[in-house]
């Protein structure tokens, strides 16, 4: 993976774009994400079913991985069984 890579969920509509790349495998809804969606959709693991929100950024604990959700879905993102968390956005006044 590298910045700009797009990953799709195997179990829901979620699509993410890599903002900060790390050498890890990203899961969505408990199943590995890949460049292409499989023909048959898998089942969402109930432990990772909180969903993704479009336009939100997700990061790992160490801050080495950052993903931008470009399509929302029912699965939630994780790496090695640990859920990614929502990146805090500090609101800035509109400047343009």
């Amino acid at each position, binding site marked *: 993976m590298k910045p700009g890579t797009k990953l799709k969920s195997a179990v829901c509509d979620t699509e993410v774009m890599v903002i900060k790349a790390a050498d890890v495998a990203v899961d969505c809804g408990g199943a590995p994400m890949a460049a292409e969606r499989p023909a048959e959709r898998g089942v969402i693991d109930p432990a990772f079913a909180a969903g993704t929100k479009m*336009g939100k950024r997700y990061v790992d604990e160490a801050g080495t991985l950052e993903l931008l959700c470009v399509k929302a879905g029912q699965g939630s993102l994780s790496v090695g069984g640990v859920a990614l968390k929502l990146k805090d956005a500090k609101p800035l*006044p509109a*400047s343009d």
Partner: protein
Amino acid sequence: MAADAEPDRIGLVCDGRRWSYGSLLRAAQGAATLMQKSGATHVALLDENSEAAAMALFGAALAGIPYVPLNYRLADADLAALLARIAPAFIVGDQARVNRLNPDGGHVTLSRAEFVAQAEQAEPHPGAEEVDGAIAVQLFTSGTTAAPKAALLRHANLLSYILGTVEFGSASPEEAALVSVPPYHIAGISALMSSIYSMRRILLLPAFEPDAWLALAAAERATNAFVVPTMLSRIVARMDAGARADLGTLQAVAYGGGRMPAELIERALELFPDVGFTNAYGLTETSSTIALLGPDDHRAAHRSADPVMRARLASVGKPLPTVEIEVRDEEGRKLPVGERGEIYVRGEQVSGEYKERKALDNDGWFPTRDAGWIDADGYLFLAGRADDVIVRGGENISPGEIEDVLMTHPTIADAAAVAVPSVEWGEAVGIAVVVRPGQTAPSEDELRSLIKNRLRSSRVPERIAVLNALPYNEMGKLLRREVRALFR
């Protein structure tokens, strides 16, 4: 993404016509197909702002071709040179001028109406294969000291700016931003991107005029606006002269692109007591804004009796969380708080790159050529251009071109042109001249018409001083700051 989220929501209003996010995306996809079929190496716009600017910007990105909005105010010879540098290009706008100035460029030209109609009909482009480090936008600098440089902004730079400053879909359906900056200015490009990403409806004013601005703001219930100081000066002047418009929905005005005179921002704060003002400082080479003075800072400074606080009204605020800013001396050493030097900036949104050369140092810092200092609380202040360019209403004027013309006058022995404060233009031209021994000084009118006839009216000096000698240092370098001090 905006089109995915809410395809039917209105994203852009121009000349009374309304475009949904879905229809803008569809037109951009069609535009990308037209662009790719043309075989062009660049996509250019030679036109005032309109829906075509948004379609061309996003269409070019989908087609993977650099987008080059051109300044339609350029003189023929200057524009012809730029057209030759981007040939063969896919050009939207003034076809007759392109064909007259660069007939051998192999350009494909479409009028605005033809472009929009064909883009809506053409097969949607699926989006080009993404290439690492691809160039999104190429903007020509104003080129006052030499030929214009082609500043390159890569997709990674623009994406970093947008992600760092805007939250996706954060605007409520009532929010609408009035955009009156020209499409060839970095602020015109960032306004399209930020507004669409936040899903704040864009109200395009193709050519700025204060009464038209007031009318559009009232009719479309604008909540946000971006202006250059000269525009704000004209709006305030019209309102002070009695022009009335219902601006009850206006919540936020951002400004940038030139020095804001203190009297003007104070008057604007009084005239719009409920509006949040934001000073945005940025450059073409930094993908727009790198520092912000926000609404709370404006009001706190305006209310304060403390001179340090009050002075902040003239500050450009603090760096964005995603960029670093330093002030350095001429040897490149970081300067302590309060000392004036050249402003350097570093961050992912900073391209600092021209087609001709990369201006970043080994550690990724970009020398802005702007002079300034940082106060004890981290507020950044600008102090003119490091290279003394005069910025009059957003137009960069090189002192040298004015001095050269003055020196052609038979009675003038020496001349200097500097920036003088101007309420209307931010800066205007002031000149100091030295007359040859035994000669009588030419009248001010004579000097003004000399400049006007040889250059453009924007170069005509507002202030004129006749001196016995110009101030030079021991190395023979003209001390421009001492000349400027004459006009304070």
